[in-house]
């Protein structure tokens, strides 16, 4: 792999870390700090983790 390609890949990874890593860290902190989840919090779990097709713009 050429140096320019390596830099491009490195930049792409850095961009992904910033785009997905920061919200992930915030979500993790929020989840781990919740010590007494309400029934509403628990029911809201059903709305998380969409089907993999959703991320590709597909229909469930």
């Amino acid at each position, binding site marked *: 792999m050429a140096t320019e390609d390596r830099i491009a890949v490195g930049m792409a*990874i850095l961009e992904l870390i910033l785009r997905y890593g920061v919200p992930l860290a915030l979500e993790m902190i929020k989840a781990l700090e919740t010590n*007494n989840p309400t029934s509403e919090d628990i029911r809201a*779990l059903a709305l*998380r*983790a969409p089907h993999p097709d959703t991320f590709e713009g597909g229909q469930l």
Partner: protein
Amino acid sequence: MERIKRGWHIYLAISACVVWALVANGCVKQEFRTNAYKTLAAGAAIYESGYPAFLELHQRGLVTDAQKAAGKVFAIKYWAAYHASSDALIAYDAVDSAENKDRVRVTLDEAARCLSTLSAYIQPFLSKGVK
């Protein structure tokens, strides 16, 4: 009455045990519920960030079609296990029974296993970004 007066320390000890058992049961239930919630919520956050990032690497040509397809198989397994587990936790939250608690345990174990497999597959692509 006289018997109660004489044996007050025994009644006190029994009462203390009953109160402790009730409190402990409540704490154990709360702890189990909280831990299950944290496990699912943190897992969902990892999946919701990791899988789209993996798809983006595919769009950029850093993950092949075959690798993407393999990742999707793991993602579908996690998705199914996660929802089985969140449904089980919702049922346990509504009705505290041994059967519902066991269902949470079993489905949560499966969800954790599936997330671990998915993360192990995706993580090298995200950290190295190589084919």
